[in-house]
């Protein structure tokens, strides 16, 4: 969708039309996903899938970020897990500080296990909800910006950039794992109880009874994310549904942001950097700035995704900084189709669902299928699912079963096996 850049002058009309169509489609899909999918899944007896879908949609946000830097700009980051986890930890720390006032120790319960008597200084700001929200976005953005600046300034790129981000993963993974008094090590932050939004919560009181029930026949649910009951049980179905709604909204917003970034001049520059960086440099642009900016934006998206994922999973642990997880993120984009925003979203959701279905069906051997899938995608569908759909699959199937495409001229060249073979040889 809209990855081709149309000439600007006369093409305004069709471009606008396409944009409108796209907006309509996205809005429709979002509404369906918010309003119809959950009750449908519940009716089908698949209630736990709603939560799954919500989490996977959160992952789709980070996939969008990856697509932005990898698909469009050609930077393969294997360290997005850090940024994802930072967002998760930020919100997790806030939630861990929701300690009932009558508790014997005013500390997250794990700290006493490690002889931490006083709340570490950097935890304290996380009492504040606005600060937490800012931290969820800004912490990863700043880290991404800093890392990006250091790396791109030195013109480290390609494979080296990937490996450097891997090294960063190791640093953060071991730090969060090792500093157990601060972050509870391998266990991570878990067992969140309530979410307290203070003044935010008062306005919803009257709506509350109507969103108690799970079946989504009340439009008021859509209003729910704005107003919030204070001290809400975070694991209750309605809170979780609010997170689900928020996730979809954020995904739409992230999609819009990425779409906006990639369609204009900025987007064309990104693609130019991907395809020929020296030439961009020679044309008078400074690719470093663009790369830093786009990396920081992608980091911010990862942070938001991490926070949304954490509240829906009820857990954030250093596992999210594991290299495996970061590589998986890239694979979602590869499966969906790089340089295609809808592909990134689709890839994240499909791969994760495939993973959970496969591991349910073949608990002991599902890794075979997962590994096979990656191999297959890279070898057979180098442009991902969306790329394949774009390249006229019907024609391909026709060719495969022997119906040849209509050829206007020179049929001999197209059909002669000798020439075909020669051509293949030449190409390889």
């Amino acid at each position, binding site marked *: 969708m809209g990855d081709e850049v149309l000439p600007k002058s006369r093409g305004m009309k069709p471009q606008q039309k396409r944009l409108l169509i796209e907006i309509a489609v996205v809005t429709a899909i979002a*509404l369906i996903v918010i309003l119809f999918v959950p009750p449908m899944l519940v009716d089908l007896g*698949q209630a*736990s899938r709603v939560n799954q879908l919500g989490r996977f949609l959160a992952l789709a946000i980070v996939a969008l970020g990856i697509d932005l830097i990898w698909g469009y700009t050609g930077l393969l980051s294997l360290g997005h897990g850090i940024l994802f986890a930072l967002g998760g930890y930020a919100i997790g720390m806030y939630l861990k500080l929701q300690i009932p006032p009558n508790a014997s120790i005013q500390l997250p319960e794990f700290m006493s296990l490690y002889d931490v008597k006083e709340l570490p200084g950097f935890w304290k700001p996380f009492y504040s909800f606005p600060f937490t929200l800012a931290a969820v976005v800004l912490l990863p953005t700043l880290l991404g910006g800093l890392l990006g600046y250091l790396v791109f300034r030195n013109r480290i790129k390609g494979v080296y950039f990937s490996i450097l981000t891997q090294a960063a993963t190791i640093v953060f993974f071991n730090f969060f794992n*090792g500093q157990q008094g601060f972050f509870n090590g391998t266990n991570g932050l878990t067992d969140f109880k309530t979410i307290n939004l203070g003044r935010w919560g008062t306005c919803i009181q009257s709506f509350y009874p109507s969103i108690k029930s799970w079946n989504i026949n*009340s439009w008021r649910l859509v209003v729910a994310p704005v107003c919030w009951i204070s001290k809400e049980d975070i694991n209750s179905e309605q809170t979780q549904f609010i997170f689900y709604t928020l996730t979809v909204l954020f995904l739409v917003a992230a999609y819009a942001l990425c779409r906006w970034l990639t369609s204009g001049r900025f987007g064309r520059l990104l693609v130019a950097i991907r395809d020929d960086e020296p030439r961009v440099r020679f044309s008078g642009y400074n690719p470093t700035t663009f790369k830093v900016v786009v990396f920081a934006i992608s980091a911010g998206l990862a942070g938001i995704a991490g926070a949304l994922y954490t509240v829906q999973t009820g857990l954030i642990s250093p596992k999210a900084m594991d290299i495996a997880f970061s590589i998986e993120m890239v694979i979602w984009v590869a499966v969906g189709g790089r340089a295609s925003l809808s592909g990134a979203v689709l890839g994240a959701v499909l791969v994760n669902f495939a993973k959970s279905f496969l591991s349910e069906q073949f608990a002991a051997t599902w890794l075979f299928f997962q590994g096979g899938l990656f191999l297959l995608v890279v070898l057979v569908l180098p442009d991902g699912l969306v790329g394949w759909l774009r390249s006229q699959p019907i024609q391909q199937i026709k060719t495969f079963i022997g119906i040849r495409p209509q050829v206007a001229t020179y049929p001999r060249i197209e059909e002669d096996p000798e020439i075909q073979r020669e051509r293949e040889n030449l190409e390889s």
Partner: protein
Amino acid sequence: MSHQIGRRKFILYGSAALGTSLLLKACTTPPPESGTASTPGAGSSPATGASPVSNTTSGGGDTIKVGILHSLSGTMSISEKSVVDAEQLAIEEINAAGGVLGKQIEAVVEDGNSDWPTFAEKAKKLIDQDKVVTVFGCWTSASRKAVLPVFEQKKHMLWYPVQYEGQECSQNIFYTGAAPNQQIEPAVDWLLQNKGKEFFLVGSNYVFPKTANTIIKAQLAAKGGKTVGEDYIPLGNTEVAPIIAKIKKALPNGGVIFNTLNGDSNVAFFKGMQEAGLTPDKYPTMSVSVAEEEIKAIGKEYLVGHYAAWNYFQTVDTPANKKFVEAFKKKYGDDRVTNDPMEAAYIMVYLWKQAVEKAKTTDLEPVRKAAIGQTFDAPEGQVTLENNHHLSKFVRIGEVADDGLFKIVFETKTAVKPIPWNQFVADTKGFACDWSDPNKGGKYKV
């Protein structure tokens, strides 16, 4: 320019679309469907999963579904795979003997992939989708902590078979592995009496070893021992040269090593000990995560003469154990061995079965009540499920023998009662847990 228009239009059309659809929805609000609506008076309990009793009974059919949730892939599969084997053996035996309440047990096996969010996800899936009546699962504390909120929220039931650090007592979990006072504390006492006063503590860098070492240090301070050093290796790390150097520096003339390493690191650690010349006569090592399975993976040559503390060894001499070992080898092959977590996993399936039979239903609350006080003639001896949801267990210390099994050098005469809230840790001193009395609950001051 163009995208500015686009954005404005986006907001305009978006809100228009949202508005219309909201209106439409509001006008055509259908009556609540019967299947999903919750009773208005239900208060805090949301509609799905909140009434587990009706969920489980509606499962019906000729089989009873139970969940098995362990890591079959990833780092932890090294240990957890054999626990699954033991659970499946118990289920098979029960089914062969006629099942529970006249129904066969059907196990739904899920892979936690050594990944904690996956554990939480699969726990939800087992409860909501498969409507299992109970779940047997988890190994690491991290995975247990990850699923704990799920089980608490859905008021469901988890059986957990591994020795752990304590400091937890959930109404929704039954712990059939050892609490610290059933493994670590007796082991330290035994070492103080028989092996020496100077201890070096080695552990993996996560919650169990850290808590265990906190306890050990307090215990040593109280009983006249001395901690000369402690060090931690990240899970899965195999470079042990720095730690060996530290041990040699701290204990130049020998001393006791207390080892709470988990998984792969044990292999590297014992190989490193051996190559550095730290032999068991001068540096006796007490391990609490090395059992028969691990000996097989490390190589018995590296371990002969070292010690381990457990509640069960394959060499325990009881009729029940003979039967257990025989049945296990018959099903999985002669070269397989049994160990403590496997035994705990095996007995928890039976305990659950007994509780169901006593309650005459698989509904969660009656079973939970009926489970307390169940006794079972386990391979390790007769064990009882106490009212703090932990199991009373026998404590044993074994020395690794030439055949790769343990020679039991110490065992308690009677089963030791579990103490989940540790009395050596300041924060939990004086607390206890009792689920048979609604006024006491998970943590009350004695």
